[in-house]
């Protein structure tokens, strides 16, 4: 099943299971969303459950907060990464903080779905990776699946969570297919996963970059290097234990994400792992990611985005210490 279809199936299951679950957003109804992630849901659940909203992101998140206060579990779609900012105020000042401000009396089980990341040749504001901006805010969970199975299960868990979850969907992987065992028992939402075992170095990534890291590990294997690949899955909370355990085995860590490196999630991982694993590390933790520059026009995005060469280059540098 394709990753986008897995999210669709997961939403369908949630809508069936709980009448309080709502799907809201621009074009999510008849069109099924610009990526067709909500395809067919309005047809089957009606426009009271699958709601085409006015073109107003602050309105979408703000009303979802109100609906959640009233006992609903809204799953809202932001059409593209760059368009979440009109809603950023509602997310940061309200959605993230109301539980704490109410001394735990108010729960806001809102899921904000954001297709994110580049590699699809889009115009500006359609390719950004703003996850660090959300992970920095306490009160929000921030997750990103990398494959169809996780996309399915993490959506189930996000909807069931009583906390707001920012669910970043790797749009360039929407059409990637994978097995989804819909009757499995998933691990915890925040748990990182060892995707591939290795002995020489750990590559840690999430969302769209997991596949790239697997490809890098394949390429490195041909050169006789054994790389371990971690799928972090959740950016906040971040499963440092799994990363630490891996680094204690491999002694080297490279973190890969599309977002700018400066003050990004890789910086946090590097700092914590350096603290936790100082005596195990054979090399500084290296990061591969975007530059401190606006996301460039499509014809330059291959240069901007981490590709196989840049990951392998970082691997070589770490191994050279």
């Amino acid at each position, binding site marked *: 099943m394709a990753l986008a279809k897995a999210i669709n199936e997961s939403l369908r299951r949630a809508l069936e299971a709980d009448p309080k679950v709502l799907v809201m957003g*621009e074009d999510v109804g008849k069109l099924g969303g610009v990526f067709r992630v909500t395809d067919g849901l309005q047809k089957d659940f009606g426009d009271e459950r699958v709601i*085409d909203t*006015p073109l107003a992101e602050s309105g979408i998140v703000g009303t979802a907060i109100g609906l959640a206060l009233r006992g609903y579990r809204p799953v809202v779609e932001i059409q593209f990464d760059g368009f979440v900012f009109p809603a950023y105020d509602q997310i940061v000042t309200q959605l993230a903080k109301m539980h704490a401000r109410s001394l735990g009396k108010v729960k806001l089980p809102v899921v904000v779905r954001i297709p994110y990341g580049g590699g699809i040749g889009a*115009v500006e504001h359609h390719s950004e990776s703003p996850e660090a901006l959300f992970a920095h805010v306490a009160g929000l969970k921030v997750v990103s699946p990398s494959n169809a199975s996780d996309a399915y299960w993490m959506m189930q868990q996000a909807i069931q969570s009583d906390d707001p979850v920012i669910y970043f969907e790797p749009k360039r992987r929407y059409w990637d297919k994978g097995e989804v065992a819909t009757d499995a028992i998933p691990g915890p939402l925040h748990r990182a996963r060892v995707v591939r075992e290795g002995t020489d170095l750990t590559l840690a990534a999430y969302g769209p970059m997991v596949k790239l890291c697997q490809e890098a590990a394949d390429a490195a294997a041909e050169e006789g290097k054994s790389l371990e690949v971690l799928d972090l899955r959740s950016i906040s909370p971040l499963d440092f234990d799994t990363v630490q355990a891996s680094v204690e085995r491999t002694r080297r860590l490279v973190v890969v994400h599309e977002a700018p490196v400066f003050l990004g999630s890789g910086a946090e991982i590097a700092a914590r792992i350096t603290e936790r694993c100082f005596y195990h590390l054979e090399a500084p933790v290296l990061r591969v990611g975007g*530059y401190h520059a606006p996301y460039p026009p499509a014809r330059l995005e291959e240069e901007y985005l981490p590709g196989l*060469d840049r990951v392998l280059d970082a691997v070589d540098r770490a191994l050279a210490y």
Partner: protein
Amino acid sequence: MTVDSSATRKPRRSAAGKAGTTGSKAGSAGPQRTARATRAGAQESTEPQLVQLLTPGGERVENAENAAYEPYVAAITPEELRGLYRDMVLTRRFDAEATALQRQGELGLWASLLGQEAAQIGSGRATREDDYVFPTYREHGVAWCRGVDPTNLLGMFRGVNNGGWDPNGNNFHLYTIVIGSQALHATGYAMGIAKDGADAAVIAYFGDGASSQGDVAEAFTFSAVYNAPVVFFCQNNQWAISEPTEKQSRVPLYQRARGFGFPGVRVDGNDVLACLAVTRWALERARNGEGPTLVEAYTYRMGAHTTSDDPTRYRHDDERAAWEAKDPILRLRRYLEASNHADDGFFAELESESEALGKRVREVVRAMPDPDHLAIFENVYADGHALVDEERAQFAAYQASFADAEAEGV
């Protein structure tokens, strides 16, 4: 959605909305707002009430409701009319060429203006050189009126830049993709004009969907409170991607203005003459210190939202067919022919001009080079920035290492 066919009827009302709090200048040529205001109660229907000066059949409409706007096109010459026609034909040709180039893989995406030529040319030609225009991403016809070379519009859609022209070169701001943002920029710019004591005006373009954004409501608030010389030109093309206008508003959009304290007018967006007249009126109000106006150009997006959209999922062909009958270009052609303002020679010449434009656009786009890799780091800051400098140097060294490796490899 129900699409009212009132554009084919005689318009019953020209404009609505009480004048803004600012009061009109005595003796100004503006419409008789007080007279209209007394009938405001009759406006609550959702039926389109349009200012229309040319019927779809190409006949001039002269009635009491239009009288207020007539003076703004009373002196228009046959040559000017042919000019409007030429603008619309060439803009449509450019747009068709860009759509074709997208299909051929030369552009990553294209947002077509097909069907909206009259709204854009009429309003664009109403602007003065020192006015300032804030477009969204579909205003290719307005760009044309401002003298922006159309090929400059294509760089962003080809993916070689995120803009493509100097906004101050033609007082035509960069395209804005985040819906509604530019309404506030336009308002601020207009506030600046007023502070400077200049008499220019600003026009901000956005769609019916955009009218739902907080930024647009805030622009209405600021412009009214500060009496900013800005015209909000909303092209209601009936759809915001898959959502019809009624998913954005329960009242006709032009009526929104009233609640903010300035007038709103709905104009037949497929009637270039009416768009010209109403926009001239609104810009003149702005220049005269009478504050903002909302113009709702009632029109139709004939094509897909963009080349990546599939309108068959949400709208019917017969809707398009109904609007085809109101085609803005055909309408003016009929009028030009019936009034003997243009002969066969004019149309033939325009046809070859149109061919030439198409050819030039194709050639320029195909020859458009990819940007230099280091362009990623250009203009991130006006003052420069140490981190950017460092990353640029690392990037350059990294790129060079491939060239070195290749050289060694052979």
